[in-house]
């Protein structure tokens, strides 16, 4: 039942959906192991692994030393042995000490050894801003990963996708970076920080099958069909873009990438060919952000259909500030401006 279509469902937050995905996979495949900082006894600082050590034992779910390089390096070795490690990096901002093991090792092991060794592993990490976390709890480093040949980068935007994609990633034989937009853990946040928080229980995608199902990789979702302009977004920006479309009255077609790289190019190209206009939205800093690659792909594939310059709405090229968070964060008003601008172009 790969799409979970007929399964019993429950209301879940994104945290519960992620936990459920790991629970399902720990149950199904005893090569799956979970570890990371504070994920064992305590269940993770965001509580994503709560209860799993108790259920599956300390050799399957355990705390690790505070060493991102060690966590990822050990997982590479476990993968080479034949396990499917799922590791948590406490915040994506802290992944850098583990970058060498990702870039130089995990990503190339299959290639360099001609399939002699592989390392199927999933590296979960909360990303993105919106929680007054300052520069060390707010970053969106996805672009860096997309340049690394041999790994996949995935980011869900709702509980249903989060569970289905995480299961697909754990089952996938390539190393995967699984980015969790932490501002979405408890509800679909649309960038209006001054409005009351909406919980997942109010959202259709908060209805999640209890058992095993997958959401396929390399497949984008059109979350709002539209005719005037294509918006390419992922993570929290999906909701910001939806709010912007509503508030601006622009009939935008909004695409949630879900798989950032490798991606579902066909869906993007088809949409832009239809609308003739494109706005790309991400939280990460602009220069050499993944928006640059998206823009390149769109112009390479849709040049003769474009009626206006592609626009980027992104975080600024500065470290993520603490007090000025809402000046930094791409809020609906900024996306709306870009939507209107592209229509005039």
């Amino acid at each position: 039942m790969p799409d979970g279509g007929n399964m019993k469902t429950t209301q879940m937050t994104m945290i519960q959906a992620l936990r459920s995905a790991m629970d399902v996979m720990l149950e199904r495949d005893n090569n799956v192991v979970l570890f990371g900082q504070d994920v064992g006894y305590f269940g993770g600082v965001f509580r994503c692994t709560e209860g799993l050590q108790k259920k599956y034992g300390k050799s399957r779910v355990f705390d690790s030393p505070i060493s991102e390089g060690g966590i990822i390096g050990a997982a590479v070795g476990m993968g080479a042995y034949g396990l499917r490690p799922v590791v948590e990096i406490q915040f994506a901002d802290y992944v850098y000490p583990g970058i060498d093991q990702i870039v130089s090792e995990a990503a190339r092991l299959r290639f360099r050894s001609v399939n002699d060794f592989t390392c199927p592993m999933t590296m979960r990490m909360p990303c993105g801003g919106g929680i007054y976390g300052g520069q060390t709890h707010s970053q969106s480093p996805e672009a860096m990963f997309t340049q690394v040949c041999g790994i996949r980068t995935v980011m869900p935007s709702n509980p249903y996708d989060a569970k289905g994609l995480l299961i697909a990633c754990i089952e996938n034989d390539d190393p995967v970076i699984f980015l969790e937009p932490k501002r979405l853990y408890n509800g679909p946040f649309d960038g209006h920080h001054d409005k009351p928080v909406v919980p997942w229980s109010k959202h259709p995608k908060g209805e999640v099958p209890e058992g095993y199902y997958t959401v396929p990789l390399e497949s984008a979702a059109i979350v709002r069909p539209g005719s005037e302009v294509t918006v390419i977004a992922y993570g929290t920006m999906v909701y910001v873009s939806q709010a912007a479309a509503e508030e601006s009255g622009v009939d935008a077609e909004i695409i949630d990438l879900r798989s950032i790289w490798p991606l579902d190019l066909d869906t993007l190209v088809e949409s832009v060919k239809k609308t003739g206009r494109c706005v790309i939205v991400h939280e990460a800093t602009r220069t050499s952000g993944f928006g640059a690659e998206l823009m390149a792909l769109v112009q390479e594939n849709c040049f003769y259909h474009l009626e206006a310059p592609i626009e980027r709405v992104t975080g600024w090229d500065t470290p993520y500030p603490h007090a000025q968070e809402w000046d930094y964060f791409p809020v609906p008003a900024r996306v709306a401006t870009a939507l209107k601008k592209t229509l005039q172009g």
Partner: protein
Amino acid sequence: MTAASPAREPLRLHVPEPTGRPGCETDFSYLHLSAAGSKRKPPINEVPAKTIDLAFALIRVLDDTGQAVGPWDPKVDAAFLKRGMRAMLKTRAFDARMLVAQRQKKTSFYMQCLGEEAIATAHWMALTPGDMCFPTYRQQGLLLANDEVPMVEMMCQLFSNRRDPMKGRQLPVMYSYKKHGFFSVSGNLATQVIQAVGWAMASAIKNDTKVASAWIGDGATAESDFHTALTFAHVYRAPVIINVVNNQWAISTFQAIAGGEGTTFAARGVGCGIASLRVDGNDFLAVYAASKWALERARSNHGPTLIEWVTYRAGAHSTSDDPTKYRPDNDAARFPLGDPVARLKQHMVALGIWSDAEHEALKKQVEGEVAAAQKEAESHGTLADGHVHPASEMFEDVYKDMPAHLKRQRAELGIG
């Protein structure tokens, strides 16, 4: 190759556990304490490998009756002790107030150092002007021991207001005070330890006299920059002290998860060719004496010292944490090295230079100072009321001079 050997027990994964958990009291015998006054004090040019005994022992000065005993007794005078007591009480009062301020949403976040006050304050008293500390987020004692650092300014940083010297860019507690020998706190663990070593190497390259003092928690020693720091400090005999604050916990994980089981963090230093001491971090006099020894050693071209300060994180990790989820409630009270304030007080009372009344009066006094500072700081606003530095501050200081693309982006935000 040898043929597979006869059947034996299968392998199993060892995952260390603390002896205590919620509902089950901790057995603190794992700490391996030594009696106060029982450990030798080597000359400052001691050969690193010879400090192995001190890396596995515990250097203590204050005994259970509050007497200062043994070769490490720094023999300081009453005025000094009173200054030390003031520094600790001020730190504790500051923390208590700011914890409340966080609950009132005046600041977005706070981290206290409850139970660890002796370490930073006594260490600061051993430093010489010009020395540079490379602290973590839990060394506010290095600033609060120093009455020249205005508490109002520190609070403005915590409130992210218009007077925040960090201009709202940094999370609360991420201070930077170059002129007070306090390096900019990084949110990334361990990174500043190798930087401290580099700073110390620079001091040596320039034939200066300044020493660097690096700070790291037990948990963070697992990060790779701890290793690079030890390696570089040893290879170049850098004038640096590497302070490992072993407060038994790293958020929810016990110090054994960082590698404390069956060895000590001080022992890592000896292995790397660095003189190393394991010291009672709740003993104000031991902290002062060990810091002095290491500073003197560094300043005399004898190279680095690693000091493991054994203490206990009596509060939550941060305002985002709830320790009752992972450790016994009464752990701090049962910690065998006691409370640093109580221990110094006992000593001062035993010496006849201090009384309950004086203690209460000093407490009141520093609480008053903290309250007054808070009142003034709040008059400049808080994050909650939006009196923060303007958005344009985001684009400044990314580079020395603002490049064209940041000017364009600033304009795009409508503040060009």
